[in-house]
């Protein structure tokens, strides 16, 4: 299976700060990948590295087996919708489509105009006077009509109202179904991604916490509760992601490939949101431990 995106030890540094650090990842082709993490986690950096807008400080990144931004061919294979969906405010919608036609060799003009028409946007309207939702749709249209093999979307729905958000994701899913492109889209909200993604990457504090198929994540994560006990006494194949204790009871979110045999535990299924939040919490705890560790050393 070819990877739509493959990174090894990938890092991007701004001044002293690493926006993305030691990121190794292999995302299989044909998926709708959710890239989730809190604001400032490095999602935008990762997507811009994949689009060729940024060059890595460390490590390597390959998209569809090619070097991002290396040439017109590679640029044509990747559709990118940037955060806040920038557009030339003084250019009309049809001029934007003209831009797409002039700058992309595989441009599908008929598809572009059909989509704009279906969205009920006047092609003569200036991009500056479009609503946020319409501008996002224009950006998506531009990215799709260049006929890419992979679509990268950076927080495409973050600035949209709930209705526009749902519409946008619906259109995106139609496109995926129709053209079979791979998609990587980022969001800081799991709820946005839950309905559309079949693969999830959790990125927290410039590090990849987990990356796997959604079905696999749901199958291997369990919330178990039982009489209070030390989480270190669990079998070796059960990895604790999140734990909470009361005087009498212990509740854990664990990852395991094996069935849970201990009859003391009550097992409950988890939602994707539970899993993501658990990983985010784990990353936060690790970060705190690292900082307080430094404090002790100092």
């Amino acid at each position, binding site marked *: 299976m070819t990877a739509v995106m493959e990174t090894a030890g990938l890092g991007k540094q701004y001044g002293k700060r690493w926006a993305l650090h030691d990121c190794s990842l292999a995302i299989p082709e044909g998926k709708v990948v959710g890239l989730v993490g809190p604001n400032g986690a490095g999602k935008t950096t990762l997507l811009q590295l994949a*689009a060729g*807008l940024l060059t890595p400080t460390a490590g390597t990144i390959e998209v569809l087996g090619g070097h991002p931004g290396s040439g017109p061919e590679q*640029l044509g294979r990747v559709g990118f919708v940037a955060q806040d969906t920038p557009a030339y405010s003084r250019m009309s919608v049809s*001029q934007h489509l003209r831009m797409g036609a002039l700058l992309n060799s*595989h441009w599908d003009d008929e598809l572009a105009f059909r989509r704009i028409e279906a969205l009920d946007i006047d092609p003569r309207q200036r991009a500056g006077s479009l609503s946020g939702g319409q501008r996002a749709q224009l950006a998506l249209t531009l990215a799709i009509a260049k006929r890419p093999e992979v679509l990268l979307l950076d927080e495409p729905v973050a600035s949209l109202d709930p209705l526009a958000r749902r519409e946008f994701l619906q259109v995106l899913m139609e496109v995926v179904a129709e053209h079979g492109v791979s998609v990587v889209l980022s969001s800081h909200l799991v709820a946005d991604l839950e309905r559309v993604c079949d693969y999830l990457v959790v990125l927290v504090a410039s590090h990849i916490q987990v990356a796997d198929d959604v079905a696999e994540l749901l199958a291997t994560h369990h919330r178990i509760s039982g009489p209070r006990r030390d989480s270190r006494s669990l079998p070796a194949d059960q990895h604790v992601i999140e734990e909470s204790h009361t005087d009498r009871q212990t509740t854990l979110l664990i990852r395991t490939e094996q069935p849970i045999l201990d009859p003391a535990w009550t097992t409950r299924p988890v939602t994707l949101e539970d899993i993501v939040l658990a990983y985010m919490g784990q990353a936060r705890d690790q970060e705190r431990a690292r900082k307080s560790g430094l404090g002790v050393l100092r």
Partner: protein
Amino acid sequence: MMRFAWLQFRNQAAVVFGGLAVVAVILAITGPHLVHLYDTTVATCAAHGNCSTATSVFLKNDHTLQILFDALVVVVPGIIGVFWGAPLVARELESGTFRLVWTQSVTRTRWIVLKLGVVGLASIVAAGLLGLMVTWWSSPMDRANASMYTAFDQRDLVPLGYAAFAFVLGVLCGVLIRRTLPAMGTTLVAFVATRLLVNHFVLPKLIAPTQRSFALNGVTVQGFGQMNGGPFTLFPANPNIPNAWFYSTQFVDRAGHPLSTQVLTSACPLLESGPGPSAPAGGGVESAVPAPGAGSALHDCIAKLAATYHEVVAFQPASRYWSFQWCELAIYLGVAVVLAGTCIWWVRRRLS
């Protein structure tokens, strides 16, 4: 990509080239009249006798237009740098649209090269056309003035060099500063500073001036007196060399030492003690009215000094005008090419 660069640029181009067309119409209407006037007055003045009157009368024609067009040729390159150059990349960076355009199937290098090429070429054409039109229009006046270096930077080729430089300077400021308004301001300041520095410190040193000697006599001595309270001295007159660019004129002896106040007062005691010195017209000179007797004192003085002193003039002759034009054009175009290379490199490597 070329057509897209044009698509984005055509409105701005329409404004400038539209303005240029208006200027061209005004020049075309008024120009032939000036040529006719020149041909009938100044060109034939030698036959009628009084050339200086004919010239000064002729030069009063369309004087306001002349000032206006000369000013336009001077400011247009600056306008191009500020309004075409500075926003070219800065606006893309500021509004985030670079993320849109740099992810189309055109490499960033190609994008910046063609942007620089299309708008840069338009800058050169606009400023070049304006410069040449004004040069043509002014040619009767310039011939009558016989001082071609005075309007040097508003004539012939150099305006297009300024425009090329100003444009690329603007683009580079935008690339480095990444904000449109500060980039525009910086462009203006840097452009004006460069023009002044080159005018005052580079251009005069490009070619060593020609030296020529003239006898000290009633023609080369314009008068005597004190300039702005300085030492008592004889004022040298610029010799009549048409279209020359004068660097300096002074009286020196055979060894090359300039005429000192001591030598002057000891040779001509009557001049200083005389009832009033004679001096050239113009500001900064004390007591400019020659008193009776002063004329003959000056005459005696010149006769005494002429044996040992002569006038030395350092100047650029008219024949070097085109050398200066080509040299300055080459300097500005050369710098523009270097700056353009820096822009391309910066967009490729540093903005990522």
